[in-house]
């Protein structure tokens, strides 16, 4: 199954099979594309239904969904399965997007990982931190990429939207976006498009203290993606992800230009700003400290979120 899938991707990419390994990696690097076989966990719930409809309308290849005890039914003209394993066996599903309520979401993520799903996008907000600790530990040695939780999802324009973002904002192009926040991702994409550019893939990594894919890992995927020319990296207060990503980019010799912004320059210490992870806990956590590190590592840091689009356009002209 895996071999067939990568062959498929190669043919679609129209690339000579000699570079099998490398190309396979680069195709996977954008996480989702038009050949992704996507299932929705929490398919028949109101959130799951609404967003599954939107994703189908966008053109995402939704092959079915999972709602335990509703297996055998048809929902949105697609089959409902009791387990993720059944969806994998019968439909070859390799991507799952999760709308399961917070109390059961950690379990749903582990079920998807166990069934062999390769990319899991967890939209659910409000999963207990201890649950996510277990999840992170569980998937550590599995061949799976978890995006989120508490994230808007992943979109590769004109191919697949796996998440809740408004698809029309994301015109196709060469700018990759990595962000912890939902609406701020849309804002960045909109500015990029208004600056005459477009998006290769946008990855919303999520705003929780424990998430599956770090800023650095997401940036790395985009650095390895031949369709991405430059990257917009949006972070916020709390944690060390942006500093880690910035240092990694510098170590790599800044292979592609990166425009960075950190939200929360005006946030007071010790207060949680909406996102469970957005709290200034130490000196390295502040927006100021992060921006300084990013600048030192050769990123193009913007102070105002209104300048993201213009800056990336200017950087590319250089």
């Amino acid at each position, binding site marked *: 199954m895996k071999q067939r899938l990568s062959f498929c991707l190669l043919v679609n990419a129209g690339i000579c099979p000699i570079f099998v390994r490398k190309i396979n990696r680069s195709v996977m690097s954008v996480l989702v594309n038009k050949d992704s076989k996507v299932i929705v966990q929490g398919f028949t719930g109101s959130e799951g239904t*609404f967003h599954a409809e939107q994703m189908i309308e966008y053109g995402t290849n939704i092959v079915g969904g999972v709602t335990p005890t509703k297996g055998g039914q048809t929902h949105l003209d697609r089959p409902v399965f009791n387990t993720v394993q059944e969806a994998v066996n019968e439909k070859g599903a390799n991507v799952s997007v999760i709308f399961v309520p*917070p*109390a059961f979401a950690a379990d749903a993520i582990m079920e998807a990982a166990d069934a062999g799903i390769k990319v899991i996008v967890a939209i659910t907000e409000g999963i*207990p*931190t*201890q*649950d*996510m*600790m*277990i999840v*992170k*530990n*569980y998937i550590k040695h599995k061949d799976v990429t978890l995006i989120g939780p508490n994230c808007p999802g992943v979109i590769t324009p004109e191919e697949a939207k796996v998440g*809740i*973002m*408004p698809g*029309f*904002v994301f015109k196709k192009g060469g700018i990759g976006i990595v*962000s912890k*926040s*939902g*609406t*701020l*991702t*849309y*804002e960045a994409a*909109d*500015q990029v498009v*208004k600056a005459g550019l477009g998006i290769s893939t946008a990855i919303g990594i999520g*705003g929780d*203290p*424990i998430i599956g894919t770090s800023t650095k890992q997401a940036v790395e995927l985009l650095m390895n993606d031949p369709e991405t020319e430059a990257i917009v990296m*949006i972070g*916020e*207060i*709390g944690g*060390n992800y942006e500093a*880690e990503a910035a240092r990694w980019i510098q170590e790599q010799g800044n292979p592609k230009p990166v425009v960075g*912004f950190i*939200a*929360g*320059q*005006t*946030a007071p210490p*010790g*207060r*949680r*700003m*909406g*996102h*469970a*992870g*957005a709290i200034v806990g*130490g000196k390295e956590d502040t*927006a100021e400290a992060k921006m300084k590190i990013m600048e030192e590592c050769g990123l193009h840091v913007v*102070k*105002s*979120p*209104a*300048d993201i689009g213009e800056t990336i356009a200017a950087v590319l002209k250089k």
Partner: protein
Amino acid sequence: MNIHEYQAKNLLKGYGVKIQEGIVTDTPEGAVDAARKLHAETGTDWYVVKAQIHAGGRGKGGGVKVAKNREEVKEISKQILGMQLKTHQTGPEGKKVHKVLIAEDVYYKGEHEPKEYYLSILLDRAKGCNMIIASTEGGMEIEKVAEEQPDKIVKEWIDPAIGLQPFQARKVAFALGLEGKAHKEMIKFIQSLYQAYTAADASLFEINPVLKTSDEKILAVDAKVNLDDNALFRHSDLAELRDISEEEELEVEASKSGLNYVKLDGNVGCMVNGAGLAMATMDIIKLSGGEPANFLDVGGGANAQTVEAGFRIILKDPNVKAILINIFGGIVRCDRVAKGVVEAYKNIGDIHVPIIVRLQGTNAEEGAKIIEESGLKVYSAILLKDAAQRVKEVLQ
């Protein structure tokens, strides 16, 4: 969620963690009764009167005092109850003390010298697991110790799959230089503490100080506990410990309307959908020459009701000189938000501060049109840059 020291100690005690015993009360008379009871239970002759507020540094602010008899318990409680206690964590206005904890004196003389330690369990975000931090420098701020004497700090990471192992507790106890009875007690203390931490779905337990008494007992003299808000749904007993008198009035009101609001000290209020964009909007306000008066995330379902509730909360803050509404419509349609703004504006009636509405995304132009045709004193913008410029203009 934060809880009080007395609540935290009760929680710890429930899992077998030894604590400095105490009884909470809200009157000076109650304090005397508490002292009498405590004497009967523990034999203590001296007492510690401790103000119960959600902030550290209470001792330095005059909120923790030793009483050498019951008369003093009454006197000191009288002083502390009702006082506006100022510490480095309360802000300049301080916090009103509603309750005091009458605690036993645990620094009594004996065979050994009492010694204070530091111990905490918290989430290590970078590693994705819990960690223990311990230090021989008890009673001091750990940030300071980390800066000045980093060698005095020990850390131990806990594998989430298998939990805290006995060897790890032993390692910490040895690193603190403990021997004999105190060493054994410390191991049990750490293990019970970790058990309580996971059972309560906590994100921070900070025990500072942990005391080795003169007879080699190990106990928690103070306890700071943060609970994971996302896990409160499975801890109804802990959720009840919430003390809303410790929270900003407007924040409590906002949470009732499903709004995520944090009060700040600035002059420009804002209402935004999404936490990240809300923080970015606060930044824009600052860069435009204003100061954000609040953080307010209306979430994914912005409608007329939430917009009105948001307006009312922001307007209750007398410092607000202008309001910036910033909505990026995805699932939320801008025309509906615009209608909500107009409706809310009319319902509230006399709004004296200028309002800037920036709508972008789904049906942004229809939304802008609704705002413009409403005849209200509302400035409309589509680009974030324009919104920033408008803020600058109205503040001048």
